[in-house]
């Protein structure tokens, strides 16, 4: 019992840590977004918010202020302390529920997200809250719940523009869910392929399977399809149909304010962070340092963390993973300030007429390729299931 209790305590602490990291990443993504937007537009961005005390530290303090480090704090405090309006014409239950639904799936998915590795003796183990076998399915399942937040929010607001936003959102998300799911299939085929020596849908396994080469290189088209779908799923530009403020004022959250709006807001960014992390895991080799091209002598290149002591290797792998993730977060923003919004029919055309067939073709093609590969290099080896 003691060990179980300890285990639970450790897991809770760990979970809190996870939430803290993800949430602050989300929050700082907001700052990042504003900064990147500014820089791309030739501006400086938020550089005024100062925290009493810390900002008084010479050199460092002003520097932090200049970076806008305290801006998310101020935003959060503002969201918290602003009056929380509850319009009279809304469906109150759903109205209040929607923001929670928007945020919760994003936070839930992180449960199965491996963020690094550590050595348990000779065995490489993931740093993860719950190393479930069906991790990727879990993520897909929960991730697609996020649409409910938007649809419910849009509907509950009982107002034209949010309603439009919600409708658009549901159509768009369902459309791209399909392409997204199918674009992952080659990865799963690969990960469970004979040469990987692994089996199951565990994300840890997928990462491990990419030590030879990151899948993004092997499978650029599924990676691209996944990336595009990810943008659509997170409602980011050029797919921000539900919000499109020039047409719909603010889309689904037009009627929201204060903390509820904040939840939507953070939810979106949390989705973005999680999505980036998933992409990193699926196509960019997770925390693997560099591909080793399957050459045993170069194995240290893909997994230098295993050679280090746990106290160093573990955190480094996490940091490296977060670094890769953040690059994709940055990509989100970069794309946002580069591409204009699609027209709604273009969104549908792209989803149904190009991405879904493309993904289907990819599934078939990679199934054949991997099958042929298996036959060519048939290795009679039972895949080991990592516990």
């Amino acid at each position, binding site marked *: 019992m003691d060990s179980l209790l300890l285990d639970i305590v450790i897991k809770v602490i760990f979970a809190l840590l996870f939430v803290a990291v993800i949430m602050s990443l989300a929050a700082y993504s907001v700052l990042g977004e504003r900064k990147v937007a500014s*820089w*791309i537009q030739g501006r*400086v961005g938020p550089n005024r918010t100062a925290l009493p005390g810390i900002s008084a530290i010479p050199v460092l303090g002003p520097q932090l202020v200049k970076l806008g480090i305290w801006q998310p704090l101020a935003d959060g405090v503002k969201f918290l302390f602003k009056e929380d309006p509850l319009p009279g014409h809304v469906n109150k239950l759903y109205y209040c529920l929607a923001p929670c639904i928007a945020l919760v799936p994003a936070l839930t998915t992180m449960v199965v997200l491996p963020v690094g590795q550590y050595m348990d003796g000779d065995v490489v183990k993931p740093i993860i809250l719950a190393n479930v076998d069906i991790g990727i399915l879990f993520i897909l399942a929960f991730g697609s719940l996020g649409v409910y937040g938007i649809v419910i929010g849009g509907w509950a607001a009982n107002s034209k523009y949010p309603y439009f936003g919600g409708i658009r959102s549901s159509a768009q998300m369902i459309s791209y869910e399909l392409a997204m799911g199918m674009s992952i299939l080659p990865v799963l085929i690969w990960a469970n392929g004979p040469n990987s020596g692994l089996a199951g849908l565990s994300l840890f396994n997928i990462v491990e399977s990419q030590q030879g080469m990151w899948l993004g290189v092997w499978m650029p088209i599924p990676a691209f399809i996944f990336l595009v779908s990810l943008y659509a799923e997170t409602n980011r530009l050029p797919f921000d149909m539900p919000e499109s403020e020039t047409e719909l004022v603010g889309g689904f959250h037009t009627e929201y304010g204060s903390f509820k709006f904040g939840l939507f807001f953070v939810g979106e960014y949390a989705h973005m962070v999680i999505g980036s992390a998933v992409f990193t895991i699926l196509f960019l080799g997770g925390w693997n340092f560099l591909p080793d091209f399957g050459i045993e002598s170069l194995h240290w290149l893909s997994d230098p963390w295993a050679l280090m002591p746990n106290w160093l290797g573990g955190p480094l792998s996490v940091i490296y993973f977060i670094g890769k993730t953040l690059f994709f977060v940055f990509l989100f923003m*970069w794309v946002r300030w580069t*591409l204009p919004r699609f027209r709604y029919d273009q969104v549908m055309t792209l989803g149904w007429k190009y991405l879904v067939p493309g993904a289907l073709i990819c599934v078939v093609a990679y199934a054949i390729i991997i099958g042929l590969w298996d036959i060519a290099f048939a290795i009679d080896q039972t895949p080991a299931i990592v516990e």
Partner: protein
Amino acid sequence: MAVKVVDRSPLNFWEKTYMPQVLGGLKITLDNMLRPKVTLQYPEERPTIPDNYRGVPTLVRDPNGREKCVSCQLCEFVCPPKAIRITPGDIDDSDENAHVEKRPKDFEINMLRCIYCGMCQEVCPEEAIFLQDIYSVSGYSREELVYHKAKLYELGGTLPDQHYKWDRKKEAEEKVAAGGHH
């Protein structure tokens, strides 16, 4: 009119994917992002205001501290939104500027009405009113934004030009008082 034929040749494969354009766009935004910033940190840093800028109209004094305005009311007359209101008054004989005879008892400019057209400055025969570089006008009440004479002189300061028309006049008067003219 010459007819310009627009090239509508069909798109090739790469163009159809839009990818080169998307990548080109990304390059442009990235380039912009890495470029040095020119943003001015406004309240601390102020832009250099050009001399001919038309900010808040102000009253100026000459280098001897004399009010240049003689309340001729031409600006009041010419002001398109009727923002200026002058109460004329004479200068007491004991004043050192008694030879000017006239100055405003009060000079009001309603900044809520002012359209910064600069006609007052243009029409002023005494070069007493100038639209200077002040551009941020704010206040908590309407009354506060009706600038009176003291405020206008405070904003205007001294005009360092060498236009001593009235001083020369005074000198001539004193010379004549001392020596007579013929």
